[in-house]
């Protein structure tokens, strides 16, 4: 099943490239393939056993044996949600692009499907080199998609984007080589943890650039502004999650020591990004700018959750990854729809779009309300969990996070009022219609997912790391020991060292607890 998820879009892409077809059939084939991907994912979800914590739907084939590199894919309980996010967001983006119309449709849709395949690959790869290959393969379609179909400043934006991300990726390649060769295997489920700070930094650089974290976000505003809106949605909604996923799957789990030592640094960067991104979002002059910078802020928050490395934080960050992915894809699509009507995204020239356009108003309002994390929304649940998690690491971080939530409310409300309320801006004419059924067809499913998560956030937060009761009890004891009594903690550490399965497929939470008591 896992391989099907990777192959399906890639095959569809090849068909679109090789078989001559017109705009309509290429587009509909692409939409069909993307929906089929969602279908396969739903079927996988239905068969997924959440009572287990290990790897499922695992498939392994030899790639080259002398360095122990293999094609090994599979999903964990947390990655299954991210795969789903990818499938859903990609389907919505492709459908929107089909409706909006893009030049050179065959090339465009083929690349979109290839991107779909690569991102799914990142989330399911269980081999370091395979992970790296997918991680870089994402860049190939993105480069062309932004560079060919983007706005007027696209060439500068793509160069910046590629150079930034490749700088990180190549440092990661060096780390992959050193890590894999020194441990004798590249298999993520078998490779033991490492204490080498430099290897960790190599990985961290790649993920921090792709996410992006604070000082490394230079590519972000240009890329998000110049790319076609649905690509920006994919970039901020899904591609950035691949980076955080990397932190989660490799950074935190494989490098417990460096994670522990460098946590203050990374949390500080995340905190700066959180506040700085929120402030920039509040000051941004256009719709996309607000979403772009809010995305920077949100990535800071999710990084908080991951590097809190405890139950609450990790569960919250997975939930928030899905939330933010859906939200930011929706918001970028809405930005596209607004820009289409008003020919500009500048907030100063917009306004009053609610009057006579109830559908647009409702959709944007709903999304905005969820994005600013009002209680009962899924984003609130995610952020709350993250804050609760980070609180255990120090109340100061939680204060920063809470302050950022207030800022989030400020910039989202500013965005909503600037677009929907006030007097109609100079670019808003009566000729600008309400959302068309097709546009609703793209956005409403995304919002429906968000509402469903709002109703039942535990669907993800309770099912992200499996529920093995007995195991979890031991671990919870353990966590308690960490906080209260150092000597007792050491005692329990020794206990756990005996009981915890070492080497073979360590689950995240086990790992964290074993190592965090050091």
């Amino acid at each position, binding site marked *: 099943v896992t391989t099907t998820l990777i192959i399906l879009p890639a095959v569809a892409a090849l068909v679109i490239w090789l078989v001559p077809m017109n705009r309509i059939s290429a587009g509909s084939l692409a939409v069909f393939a993307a929906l089929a991907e969602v279908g396969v994912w739903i079927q996988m979800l239905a068969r997924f056993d959440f009572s287990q914590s290990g790897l499922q739907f695992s498939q392994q084939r*030899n*790639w*080259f*044996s*002398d*360095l122990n*590199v293999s094609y090994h894919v599979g999903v964990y309980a947390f990655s299954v949600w991210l795969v789903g996010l990818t499938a859903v967001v990609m389907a919505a983006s492709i459908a929107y692009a089909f409706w909006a119309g893009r030049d*050179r449709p065959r090339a465009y849709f083929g690349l979109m499907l290839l991107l779909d395949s690569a991102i799914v690959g990142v989330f399911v790869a269980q081999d370091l*080199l395979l992970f*790296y*290959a*997918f991680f*870089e*393969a994402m*860049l*190939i379609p993105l*480069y*062309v998609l932004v*560079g*060919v179909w983007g706005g007027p400043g*696209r*060439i500068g934006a*793509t*160069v910046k984007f*590629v*150079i930034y991300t*490749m*700088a990180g990726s*190549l*440092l990661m*390649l*060096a780390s992959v*080589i*050193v890590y894999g*060769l020194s441990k004798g295997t590249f298999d993520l489920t078998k490779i033991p943890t490492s204490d080498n700070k430099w290897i960790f930094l190599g990985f961290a650089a790649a993920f921090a650039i792709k996410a992006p974290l604070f000082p490394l976000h230079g590519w972000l505003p240009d890329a998000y502004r110049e790319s076609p809106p649905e690509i920006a949605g994919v970039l901020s909604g899904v591609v950035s999650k691949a980076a955080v996923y990397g932190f989660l799957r490799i950074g935190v789990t494989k490098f417990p020591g460096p994670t522990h030592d460098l946590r203050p640094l990374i949390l500080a960067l995340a905190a700066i990004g959180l506040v700085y991104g929120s402030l920039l979002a509040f000051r941004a002059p256009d719709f996309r700018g607000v979403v772009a910078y809010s995305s920077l802020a949100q990535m800071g928050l999710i990084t908080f959750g991951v590097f809190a490395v405890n139950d609450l934080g990790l569960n919250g960050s997975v939930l928030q990854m899905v939330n933010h992915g859906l939200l930011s894809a929706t918001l970028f699509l809405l930005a596209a729809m607004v820009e289409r009507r008003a020919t500009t995204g500048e907030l100063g020239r917009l306004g009053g779009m609610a009057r006579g356009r109830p559908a647009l108003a409702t959709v944007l309002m709903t999304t905005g309300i969820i994005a600013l994390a009002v209680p009962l929304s899924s984003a609130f649940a995610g952020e709350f969990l993250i804050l609760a998690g980070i609180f255990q690491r120090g109340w100061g971080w939680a204060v920063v996070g809470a302050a950022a939530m207030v800022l989030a409310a400020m910039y989202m409300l500013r965005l909503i009022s600037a677009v929907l309320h006030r007097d109609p801006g100079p670019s808003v004419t009566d000729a600008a219609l309400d959302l068309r059924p097709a546009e609703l067809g793209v956005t409403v499913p995304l919002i429906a997912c968000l509402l469903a998560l709002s109703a039942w956030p535990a669907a993800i937060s309770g099912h992200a790391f499996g529920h093995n009761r007995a195991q979890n009890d031991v671990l919870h004891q353990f966590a308690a020991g960490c906080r209260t009594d150092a000597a007792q903690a050491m005692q329990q550490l020794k206990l756990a060292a005996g009981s915890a399965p070492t080497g073979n497929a360590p689950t995240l939470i086990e790992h964290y607890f074993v190592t965090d008591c050091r």
Partner: protein
Amino acid sequence: MIPRPHVDWFALAPINALLAAAAIALLAAVLVPRRWRRLTGAVVCALGYATAFGFAIALYVRSAHGTGVVSNALTRDRYTALAQIFLAAAGLLATGVSFRERMRDDHVAEYYALLAAAGSGMAFFVASNNLMTLFLGLEWLSISLYILCAVDRDLIGGLEAGLKYLIVGSFGSAVLLFGSALVYGETGHLDFAGINTVHHSSLAVFGLAMLIVGLGFKASAAPFHMWTPDVYEGAPTPVTAFMAAATKTVALVVMLRVLTVAFAQDDKLWTVAVAVIAVVSLTIGNFAALVQRNVKRMLAYSSISQAGFMLIAIASDNALGARALLFYLIPYAATSIGAFAVVAARERELGVPVTFENLAGFGWERPLLGVAMWTFMLGFAGFPLTGGFIGKFYAFSAAYRHGWTWLVIVGVVATLVSLYYYLGIVRAMFMRRPEELQLAPVGGSPPRETVLQTVVVTCVVVTVGSFFAVQPLIDLAKNAADALPL
């Protein structure tokens, strides 16, 4: 009467097949009517390469244990056979690229004769097992290439390229010869294995340095690269393709053999020397390529930096490094020939040298070639989904296993720099509008070139295929590298 050594004709078959092809093509230049010369020459040359390819494969299969040939002057082992497979394939593809090259009819058969002769010299060169045959092979292939560079009299810069290559190349050969003499003088042995049986003092080390320099010239590694940009730019594009793929392949393969077999005891010295050359090549090649506007010049500098990556594998001096080199050569050769083939196609379409400016819109006008070029650039840059990625991964792994993490870092940084110009080609082809084209196209549809397109597709298949089928290829390389004492 001098006793005649036993001759293993089978081991010489690839060499002789190409030599025969050269002779027949040369006869065709005289006997065949002018109209048929182009076709005859090309077919004979292609047949020669195909036969050599077949023989080399047979040799590979049947030479699990290395043996000497003709009194140990040459070797017959899988290492040699694999290198011959590479160069025969490269030659076959280069013949395909040459087929539609605009060239006067009167000397076209000689062109193919020389192409086959150069291939024959290379096949001899990689088989060489002592310093004498080494030099003989080197001169054999070089002289053929000198003429090939200048063969097209109508090409502006062709003569300059030939002359420059002749002078600089001869200098390289002379250095190599002098080095050989020093080594022989010190050790009293000509054959590689014998050289290593004697303790080396400073004279032999001088000789070693000169041998590295001489082979470095052929591999166009910096700082012995000065001729490369001009020659690559000036020579007819198919010849450039052949030189980039085949000459570099054989020079590096032979370098690895000489260093590991004849100078195993000096490995502390030459690993460092080769590593330094690798770093210099990476630096100079990449930074000079950044500012090029002419695509052939850019590819020339890129080939210098690619040599740097392969030298990393050689400098590692371990089994993994030998494997890395042999594996890397597969996507590298396919990528270079493919890239130059695309350049040749654009050149024939426009009738002027190809620059970044006049590539604008090319990708959309001719999607097959455009996408192929895109693949080749990704292959050079070492992106996943191309064999270049695996090749780089192996080369860096070998360096790490040697204990040189710093070399890995250098390689990684060099890759980053190289991205800018490789992706620059993609940018030029796909992201700029044809209106930005700075010259008026001649009009009419572009020439239909089935042969060239077949070559390009083959190269794409090899470039991409070597990403997926790593295990069989690495086994191939591994078996070949077993012939070396690593």
